[in-house]
């Protein structure tokens, strides 16, 4: 089947851009149907996302974990693995980071911080590897196994905060991790911290980029993702790379959990992942599984989220943002529709063309 290839090198940017535009237009129509003014709604949303230092802080806090889960899912996609399990891996990462973090009382921060972070990464990696090993050894579809592992992680994290790690009477939660294991805030805006986790996340994005683009590991992982037969023929072990992919992907999700613990909550409680593992799918798809693209798409989604809170004040349910996300991904899937539209608009310019 000939692939639709575009000669226009801007296409990778134009498609998500137009997808977002189209979904905003569709959402505007919905808002209009509600009898509200979409312009005020969007203005409010914009203010909520960028209007003040506080909204920026909020925005960046949200972006941090979204960026990491987006990277996790996107990395998997690049290697041909559909990791729906970022949610569970993030939870396990958070649990592990907490386990280590609460025991870091007498350990200096230079050691405590990396150790806690590593625990999170490792937790996520191991959790994801279960699905990886099942896929490599028995062919179990990772979509199913990671979903099951999500449930197991969910029940497990509820168990941990109400059993072994439970503290206090009111709240099912773990104790706070040691001061030395907490990541210091970059900036404090009133009670909101701009978490330094964002730096870790952005570094992670660049590391992922380099791994994918510049290393033999990336060469092999992508080869397996694109064409496992050819990879095997080229002496690349498929099962090893599937497990490795899952481990790295899960490690990133685990890091999301660890950062969340170390920067934002300083502890865990049941279901603290708040479905950001699933949001990672959205973000990876919008960012076209490119680590740098994912930085932008996570920022887009976090802005939509922060903005949606503000939209409430003009009486628009924030579920509109979920709808917008859905439509964006829909057009990412049906990118040919968007390409056709772009082409129609840019006829005179004669840029891209279908092959």
């Amino acid at each position, binding site marked *: 089947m000939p*692939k639709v*290839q575009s000669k226009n090198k801007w296409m990778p940017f134009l498609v998500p851009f137009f997808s977002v535009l189209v979904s905003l237009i569709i959402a505007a129509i919905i808002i209009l149907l509600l009898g509200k003014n979409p312009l005020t709604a969007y203005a409010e949303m914009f203010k909520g996302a960028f209007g003040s230092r506080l909204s920026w802080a909020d925005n960046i806090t949200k972006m941090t974990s979204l960026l990491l889960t987006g990277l996790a899912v996107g990395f998997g996609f690049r290697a041909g693995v559909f990791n729906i399990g970022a949610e569970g891996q993030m939870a396990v990462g958070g649990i592990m980071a907490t386990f280590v973090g609460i025991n870091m009382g007498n350990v200096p921060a230079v050691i405590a911080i990396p150790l806690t972070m590593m625990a999170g990464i490792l937790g996520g990696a191991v959790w994801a590897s279960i699905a990886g090993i099942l896929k490599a050894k028995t062919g179990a579809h990772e979509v199913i196994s990671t979903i099951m592992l999500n449930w197991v992680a969910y029940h497990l994290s509820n168990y941990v905060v109400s059993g072994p790690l439970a503290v206090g009477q009111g709240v099912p939660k773990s104790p706070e991790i040691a001061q030395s294991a907490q990541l210091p805030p970059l900036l404090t805006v009133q009670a909101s911290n701009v978490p330094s986790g964002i730096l870790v996340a952005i570094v992670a994005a660049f590391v992922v980029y380099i791994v994918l683009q*510049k*290393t*033999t*590991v*990336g*060469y*092999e992982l*992508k*080869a397996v993702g*694109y*064409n496992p*037969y*050819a*990879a*095997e*023929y*080229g*002496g*690349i*072990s498929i099962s090893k790379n599937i497990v490795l992919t899952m481990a790295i992907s899960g490690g990133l999700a685990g890091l999301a959990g660890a950062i969340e613990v170390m920067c934002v909550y300083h502890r865990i409680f049941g279901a603290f992942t708040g479905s950001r593992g699933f949001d990672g799918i959205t973000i990876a798809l919008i960012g076209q599984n490119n680590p740098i693209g994912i930085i932008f798409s996570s920022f887009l989604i976090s802005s939509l989220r922060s903005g949606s809170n503000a939209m409430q004040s003009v009486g628009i349910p924030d579920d509109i943002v979920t709808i917008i996300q859905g439509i964006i991904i829909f057009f990412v899937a049906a990118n040919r529709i968007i390409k056709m539209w772009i082409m129609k608009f840019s006829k005179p310019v004669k840029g891209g063309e279908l*092959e």
Partner: protein
Amino acid sequence: MSQPEVNIKDYAIYMKDITKQFPKVLANNKVNLKVKKGEIHALIGENGAGKSTLMNQLYGLYKPTSGEIYIMGEKVEINGPKDAILKGVGMVHQHFMLVDNLTVAENVILGSEPKKGISLNLKKAREEVKKLSDRYGLYVDVDAKIEDIPVGMQQRVEIIKTLYRGAEILILDEPTAVLTPQEIEDIFEIMNKLRDDGKTIIFISHKLHEVMKISDNITVMRLGEVTGHVNVKDTNEKQLANMMVGREVVLRVDKPEKTPGEKLVKIENLWVKDNRHLDTVRGINFEIKKGEILGIAGVAGNGQSELVEALTGLRKIEKGNYYFKEKEISKYNVRELREENITHIPEDRFKYAMIQEYPNYYNMILGKHYLEPFAYRGFLQHENILKRSETLVKNFDVRPADSTIATGNLSGGNQQKVVISREVSAGPEFIIIAQPTRGLDVGAIEYVHNEIINLRQKDVAVLLVSMELEEVLSLSDRIIVMYEGQIMGEVKPEEVSIEEIGLMMTGNKLKDIKLSEDTKSHHGGDK
């Protein structure tokens, strides 16, 4: 050679001024094809000449860019296979169009199923298939699944499919390409029966002696145009070849004399299982010396693919020994074998040997991507990679000469060049080559054949697996014939006839053949 319109009625098929423009290729340019009722009409031409494309338009799979089609003298508009079927056209495609996990009967009736109420009437279906197969001698196992039956039978199923739909005009696109000489005889018999029954047949083949033997009229195509139309009585193979290629063709490979060196590869009692865990290679022995080409002939599905996969580490060797330079390597994996300088050109190069999404420069290092100078401490060295790729692109004339283009965007022939150039220049000591010229046109074939000979001259041991008997015969120093996972015999190409090899390919041991034989026509005698 334009004919007055009046004659339209005499033709079963008249395709007039057919032009088919693909986005980048003009596949048919004002093609005229006239096929008389009740004849076997051969359509020949180089790879990519546009034969399949022309037939696909007749069958409604493509729509002509311009031109008219007349069937039985009637102007028709064919919007899909359904229309073609209604007009009595049936097509057996170059690549079989069968649903693997359905039975023969189910495949035959698909799309025009006999019904009983709202249900399938499978009983009736089976009866009709049986009736057709009896009538034309097309023996098939009605209830077998397609994936379980041999290609020859699949071919017959394809023919029954067309007859079941009441086809009066049959298009057979390279029906003989995958068959043994005996099976070819059978199918010719069937074709003759069909003709006697009043059916019209369009027969596409690259094998000129076949064309000469079976057809009545011949249309020759080249570069999307018709270059000639002749009656079989007025022509000969040489003339046809020239019409096809547009120049004098040298069909023989020039193979210099060479004495093979020391023994390099040794296989002892090798057993391999296929995907269904059945023994497919059953106790094979052979040796290859340096600078020697060992050819393996045989009908597809007799264990050659599994043998190749076993020797390249892609499939587990169940039993037996595999020696390379006296070293036992049967447990080596793909990477370890590659590190021994054993390389491999697989038969399905598009699926197995390249990553379509990768740019050429990445594909040019596949298998060596982790080694210096392409990688250093886990980091890819893009400069070195590009340099290597550029050299190969230039030396092997890959077009367009651009290393950064995604390999999947190259034409088929050029994609193959990427693979061949990489494997040939990876410094092999032992190279395993499967179906080296599959899908290539004459020019490219010449080129690949020369490369193989060059490897031999450089003292590389070559294992050549090909279904093209001519190719095996002309390139190999020695030939072994495989049947059902075993070796039927080893012969030297200059001492054997195509017929003998054909007999071996269908399960006759060499020694039995030699006994029952007196006259033999040596290979090359028919050229």
